[in-house]
């Protein structure tokens, strides 16, 4: 069963001086129930627009959506209590304490005080719950946002750039929390432009570029769908073998004791022959592993976000 289904979603923002900015141009997406789903794309690719459409915050220009089986445009009310969400930087009332912010939200759904303490504990904010939010660091605000999203004990958690502003320890905590929630059977939909976050956290991934989904599926499947760019060869003397291959007109370099050959895996026989002709016998030959960075770059044509700290999400 899919918790999120999107077909041909379009969103255009009309400009005052005429014309329109296209944020989503026919997005298709299907998020299975359970586990952590990464929604990856460079800034401006339409991630936040998609999240806002799903949560009824903006009206799409066209297409179909289903959130937990309901159409967000007409029946969001029936499912919103089963969805916890953070959209961009979680906005809280700065003059109130963290606990008071959660109390205000909790009253909307008659959530008990014990649950508020539970989620504060879960995000390690209980000691600072009495402090006013305006005195929180960006990371603490982010954790409070996650606490707010978890308050309803939702089936589906939609988190837009949850690692924004977190320090490395905070990122690790959030990552572990998301994985744990995924293992517990909840669906966690994480939008991010940080590849390492998605790679280490998610079971499934969709890659978004210019308002369209350009790849979708289990992380392993998305990786295997892309062509490996080279061959890794293990030989007793990597430097010597590199020289032999160079003589044979094959580009190669050594890397931590192995040989990296710039040939597609389908031309592995050329490598074997060139080395064997010079009496060098290899102990291993395998295609290079395709990493998500490569896939991302190939699909989106843009370099992925690298710095997980202090970046502003605009997607």
């Amino acid at each position, binding site marked *: 069963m899919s918790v999120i289904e999107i077909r041909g979603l379009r969103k255009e923002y009309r400009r005052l001086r005429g014309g329109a900015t296209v944020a989503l141009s026919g997005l298709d997406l299907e998020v299975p129930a359970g586990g952590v789903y990464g929604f990856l794309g460079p800034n401006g690719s339409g991630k936040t627009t998609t999240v806002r459409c799903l949560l*009824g*915050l903006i009206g799409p220009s066209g297409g179909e959506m289903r959130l937990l089986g309901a159409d967000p445009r007409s029946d*969001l009310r029936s499912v919103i209590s089963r969805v916890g969400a953070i959209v961009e930087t979680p*906005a809280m009332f700065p003059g109130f304490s963290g606990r008071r912010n959660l109390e205000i*939200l909790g009253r*909307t759904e008659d959530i008990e005080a014990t649950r508020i303490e539970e989620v504060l504990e879960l995000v390690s904010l209980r000691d600072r719950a009495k402090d006013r939010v305006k005195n929180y660091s960006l990371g603490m605000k982010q954790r409070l946002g996650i606490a707010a999203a978890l308050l309803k004990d939702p089936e589906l958690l939609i988190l837009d750039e949850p690692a924004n502003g977190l320090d490395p320890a905070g990122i690790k905590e959030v990552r572990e929390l998301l994985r744990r929630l995924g293992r517990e059977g909840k669906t966690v939909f994480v939008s991010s432009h940080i590849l390492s976050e998605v790679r280490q956290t998610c079971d499934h991934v969709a890659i978004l570029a210019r308002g369209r989904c350009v790849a979708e599926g289990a992380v392993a499947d998305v990786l295997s769908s892309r062509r490996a760019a080279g061959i890794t060869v293990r030989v007793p003397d990597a430097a010597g073998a590199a020289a032999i291959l160079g003589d044979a007109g094959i580009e190669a370099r050594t890397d931590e004791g192995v040989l990296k050959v710039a040939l597609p895996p389908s031309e592995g026989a050329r490598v074997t022959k060139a080395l064997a002709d010079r009496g060098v016998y290899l102990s291993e030959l395998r295609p290079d592993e395709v990493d998500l960075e490569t896939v991302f770059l190939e699909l989106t044509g843009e370099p992925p976000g690298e710095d997980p700290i202090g970046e502003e999400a605009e997607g």
Partner: protein
Amino acid sequence: MIASELLRYRSRRLVKWMTILFALGLAFSGFLVFINSEAEGPAAIATGAIESSPLYEECISGGFGDPPPGAGSLEEFCFEIARDSIFIEDKRFYFSDMDDIFMGVTVPVALLAFFLGASFMGAEWQKGTMTTTLTWESRRWTVFAAKMAAVVAGSLVLFAVLQGLLALFLLPSALFRGSTAGLDAAWWQDTGATLARCAAATVVAGVVGMSFASLGRNTAAALGIGFGYMVVLENLIRALKPQWQQWLVVDNIGAFVTEDPLSFPGMRHSASSAGLLVLAYATAITVIAYGFFRARDVT
């Protein structure tokens, strides 16, 4: 949802501080009234003032000769002479005047309610918390109605607290430097009706402030629209189109609250009609604000 919004309204530091500041202002006013009031009525004050006047002193010492026949004793004769030279004001504080004082204080209380209503909604947009709220309650009419209910309740409590404090701060002046005479059933009835009209005006101000902030999506826009209209536009209309004056919001609120439409130039309808007209204006603004709130993207 309403409970959540009420909690937020009463938790706001701005509400607390503005109420405290206003209450301090009222306390200071009560103090000024107390020290400027006098316990004795004009007759008693006059007796003391006349007897200590130079004219009386001169007369008593024989400066005007003996009293003519029928003028009574020398003291009575001199008192009559000196009395005409002195004007004595009644400086006692009459609690029965509270009716007018409540009406006067309603003007700043309503402006405060407008500001707090605008800030209540404006802060949501400026801080981005509207997005968070809408991820909890997706029905926009529920969110808007709950916020409006909080503003209505908050404005009423604000009005009750401030007018109650005003009465409390002025009570010592009435008890010790004035009078509580005249507080009969008719007075209570009239004053109750005045307070009800003043409270209605305060609530309308709060709701309109909230609606303006919803349209402009920030507090400053609401204040700009509100004061720009009241200070600039209405005065321009008064100057350039006096025949339209009877339709102006401020004049109609004034006519409704004071129940005296004849005090407002050009007003040709009754106080209750003025009240209904104000209600119609407020309803129209609120409906427009809700329409935009419902239809616009939250980005």
